[in-house]
């Protein structure tokens, strides 16, 4: 099993390499360059030229990429052009906020989405189902930045009970968590419902019922364990999504996270930060996928057996 995961980790390398190429190309395609941004509107062409040279921006692109890559392999993602701080340090400084948000968002999504989906499936084709399903569909359809603004309007302006920005206390986390989690919540609710309906019809559930064990046991032991497998998959995918979604949340609620760092860096053409940040994101997505696979093995002995036999 360890072997399987080592193999998976190794497979991550070409993907990360690809990501680094893609993002490097995109970043360098953009008009303007960091030298101009750094020196501001009053800089002379000469100053800009000098700085450009100093930043190594005059070298051919492939050379620049090679330098970036070899340094990255050594764990050195360079220094931010804007703040001159080591990129890795900036990322690690911002990452906890993003991770906290993404995790809380996921927690919210699961604690609300799962029961919603279960309820809808148990009451299939009743008004309860219709309500839950509609609610999930709405959650899936409303733009989360709008949810953020409306929440802010309601809870910070009309009834001012929650702070609208910052990252100092648990109160700061409530609205961002909802905004970040709402879409995932909807997806999980929908997935849970359809997965429940599928599982409920399985013969083994009927078998379990035929044993005369309590409904709760049938639900928790026989149904939910099986429902969780696809739900975990989708939650894993959406965790990656949330990591991207933090961009919006962090912007609206002025939270110093990784998403905003990268977006600001894209706008300021802070190449090293963009490259490092996106690479870091990709790594996170890869690791989350791996964790999901690991979770499968815990949930499903068949998959565990597959991992074991995999060379």
């Amino acid at each position, binding site marked *: 099993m360890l072997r399987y995961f080592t193999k998976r980790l190794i497979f991550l390398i070409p993907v990360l390499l690809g990501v680094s190429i893609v993002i490097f190309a995109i970043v360098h395609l953009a008009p303007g360059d960091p030298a101009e941004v750094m020196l501001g509107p009053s800089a002379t062409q000469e100053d800009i030229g000098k700085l450009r040279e100093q930043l190594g921006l005059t070298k051919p692109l492939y050379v620049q990429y090679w330098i970036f890559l070899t340094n990255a392999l050594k764990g050195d993602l360079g220094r931010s052009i804007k703040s001159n701080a080591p990129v890795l340090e900036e990322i690690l400084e911002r990452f906890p906020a993003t991770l906290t948000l993404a995790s809380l968002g996921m927690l919210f999504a699961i604690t609300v989405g799962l029961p919603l989906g279960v309820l809808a499936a148990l009451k299939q084709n009743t008004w309860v189902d219709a309500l839950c399903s509609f609610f999930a*569909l709405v959650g899936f359809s409303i733009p989360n930045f709008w949810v953020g603004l409306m929440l802010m309007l309601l809870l910070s302006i009309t009834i001012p009970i929650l702070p609208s920005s910052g990252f100092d206390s648990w109160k700061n986390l409530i609205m961002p968590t909802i905004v970040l989690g709402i879409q995932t919540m909807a997806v999980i609710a929908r997935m849970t419902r359809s997965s429940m309906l599928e599982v409920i019809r399985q013969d083994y559930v009927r078998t379990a019922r035929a044993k005369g064990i309590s409904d709760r046991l049938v639900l928790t032991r026989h149904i939910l364990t099986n429902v969780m497998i696809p739900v975990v998959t989708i939650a894993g995918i959406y965790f990656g999504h949330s990591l*991207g979604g933090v961009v919006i949340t962090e912007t609206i609620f002025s939270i110093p996270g990784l998403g905003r760092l990268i977006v600001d860096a894209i706008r300021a053409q802070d190449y090293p930060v963009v490259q490092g940040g996106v690479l870091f994101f990709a790594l996170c*997505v890869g690791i989350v996928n791996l964790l999901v696979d690991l979770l499968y093995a815990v949930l499903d002995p068949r998959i565990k057996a597959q991992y074991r036999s995999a060379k």
Partner: protein
Amino acid sequence: MTMSEKTVPASSGSGGALREKRRSPWWEVWRRLRRNKAAVAGMTVVILLLFVAVFAPLIAPYDPNQTNIKIRLQPPSAEHLMGTDNFGRDMFSRVIYGSRISLYVGFIAVGIGAVFGGILGAVGGYYGGRLDNFIMRCMDVLLAIPQIILAIAIVGALGTSLLNLMIAVGISQLPRYARVVRASTLTVRGQEFVEAAKAIGASDTRIILENILPNCMAPIIVQSTLGVAQAILAAATLSFLGLGIQPPTAEWGSMLSSGRQFLRNAPYLTFFPGVAISIVVLALNIFGDGLRDSLDPKLRQ
């Protein structure tokens, strides 16, 4: 409702199914779709929106770009159903016109994603081997970058424009079409009629276009319908972040974005465009769900 399938013989293999066979499969899909009330409602809203978008000049009471700062920031009233923005433009007219951009962006972006993703998926699935492997690895790379960030970077690189916005959203959706089409291609590839076409010496391109793609249509259509909804959301998100839409174009995301600074005193500037986005996306999602269930009764719940 298919709970009974295990205990009651459904129409499969019985006389009923034989009767239906005479009709085209699309008619059958339509028949099933028609019976799904939610899907019909979703479809109605989508059609209504298309109608609104096409006839925007006739429906909108004012020119959406007509500024008149004397009447700026007026709350909703009989004259201005959704109020006026900071330049005195009629919000209702702008929301009406905004449907054009949103639907346009949604459909084109999905078109870009579906066409290119579809080609990549079909080629990968059909030829298999290293080419397939390479294509799918590339898709993995795209999937590894969070969609929004990828789109922001692309718009940042290509420059802010409606077209670039659509390209960015399209590219970030590419992998899912590639995957869907590839999966269908793999199942179709081995079937007899493909072998037959090969035997009579049809070119690969022709086989892909004439034999394989038509058989992948159902999943592509479902994926696209849901994809349009997501593309509209993604585009609104990007223009909310100030990427993609050139002023004074009335677009819901950018209207929301510029209304945001008036959140305290003129919340209707953010409220209505948000409602508009939600309704379109909701309708498309409901319709897409219904379509999926109709196209694939096995998935029906």
